[in-house]
């Protein structure tokens, strides 16, 4: 998982969904969900826009292990 959203911190403001340049994040009800984690560019736009600090990054093993 690249961008990871902590549902307990998310207030459903939709900004990360709105601004993700790769259409990776979609709202599911009131919570933002990283629907296409494999298509994340790790650009950080979602985190920059999240006022709740709900977005963090978990680099996949493939990136860290090589």
């Amino acid at each position, binding site marked *: 998982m690249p961008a990871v959203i902590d549902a307990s911190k998310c207030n459903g403001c939709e900004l990360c969904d709105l*601004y993700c*340049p790769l*259409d990776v994040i979609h709202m599911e009800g009131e919570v933002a969900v990283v629907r296409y984690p494999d*298509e994340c560019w790790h650009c*950080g736009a979602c985190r*920059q826009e999240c006022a709740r600090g709900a977005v963090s*990054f978990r680099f996949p093993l493939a990136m*860290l292990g090589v």
Partner: protein
Amino acid sequence: MGSRSSHDLETDVAIIGGGTAGLNSAMAAAQAGCRVLIVDKANIVHSGAIAGGIDHFMAFLETGEPWDTREAYLGWVGSVARGAADLEVQEAVYCDELKEALERVERIGVSLRQPDGKIFRTAALGQPGPYAINFDGKKLKPKMAIEVRRRKCRVLNRVQVTNLYLHDGELAGFTGFDIRSGDFYRIRAKAVVIATGNTNRMFNAQVGNPFNLWYCPANTGDLHRAAFDAGVALANMEYVRMTIVPKGFSTPGFNAFFGMGAQLVNSLREPFMKNYHEMGNKAPRNFIVWGALQELKEGRGPIYMDCGHLKAKDLEHLFRTLGIDKDTLPEFLLAKGYAKDGAMIEMTVSEPMQARPSEVCGSGIRIGRDCASNVPGIFAAGDASDQMGCLHMATAGGFAAGRHAAAYAKKTAHRRPLATKAMAEEQARVFRPLERKSGSTYREFETIVRQICSDHFGPVKTELSLKAALEKLGRLDAARDELKADNLHELMRTHEAMNIHAVSKISATAALARRETRFPPYHYRADYPLSDDENFCGLMVIQKQPGGDVTTRLDKLRYAG
């Protein structure tokens, strides 16, 4: 998907791709008094190359230093982009626009200065002096988005443009669809500026994920393909560009590392770049990539970025800058266990991408001094044009393109019509993958395209390998009619995949015609391993003729010295 509506819109100037260049074009066209519509497949607040931030702006500042003049800058361009940069165009789209471009960036609220108020510049990439202004461009894209709204530009976010249409040989308009609602758009414009970046996802990526890329994976040559099909001439399409990236994560950082004095070493701890270029780690990018490839090939890898000799304050600046350019890079480096002090960071050569062979030119729509293509009404800017590259040219030249498009729109009395039949056909074509119950997915199709491109011209090419690639890519044509998408997100990706496929054919065809090597490894023809200035110092222009034939020609370029 339910009921999808369709919309007919009209404007004076349309900007296709609201990235760095496109938003500058929009500002200029609005300033000239035109109605402006910006269409982007993402949201212009964070879209394209600088969605997450940017950190260098290249400029000559006329400070009195001999290297800091227009002439010295153009001399540098002529030496590092010889055969790809058209200096007459560059003077018009960059040099003449630079002063205003720098002022504009600061006027919209992004300082080009350090906290102490001073301009700080570094040198790399074969520059004769420090041209790269280091700055915090984290907010540049959001601020530009505010500025175009302030100038009353209309914005259509999340609309992927699918095709361009002409009427009597001149621009009529274009089509697109909303990637969330599925609404279809028919848009008529007097002029368009195409600013959709370069073509990514065409070659295998380092850890197998085609979205773990140096450049923005949303830029997939959509408008290179559409423009080409509409008869627009393209140039510099044969080039396959690469850089040096951290192992595991394809990110920018080259300019920051080398600008601050870091050096590449091999596993024997030998700095090796002087063996490949007299400027060592300050050499033009293609030489560094070439050197790294040789070290890896000859068994002296892994290679590392050695920062151990840098002063603490320079290291601090370097790591801060890396995080401005790529938001998540510092934490990646930490997660890999690199200590900031004296880091030896394992690096590698990135995935290839279809793009310009140098920072100081582009790859795509062949433009003149007025940013116009060969088709009346179609203009281009930024990475999608053949002459603009990087932030400095996207900013300066983007604005120039918008101004010229506005002037053209103003002297055009009527918008040209979009043919009803063509619109109906395009609407059906665009949504067809959603109707297929079975078929291949874009993932499978794109993987095949990537494999063919990587096997046969990523980056080493010969006549035989290029012909093999073209034959295999041609055989894939039938699979395009079998692609299925389960939702609108996949529909967007499906069209992207088809465009990557089309651009890979254009690139291979142009590469076949350039029977020499230039900017190795960006165009390395193993069967013609030397550069041949006499026959090939110029732009390989590729164009689809009205009958459908694809032709190439060389537009020769001349340089002093």
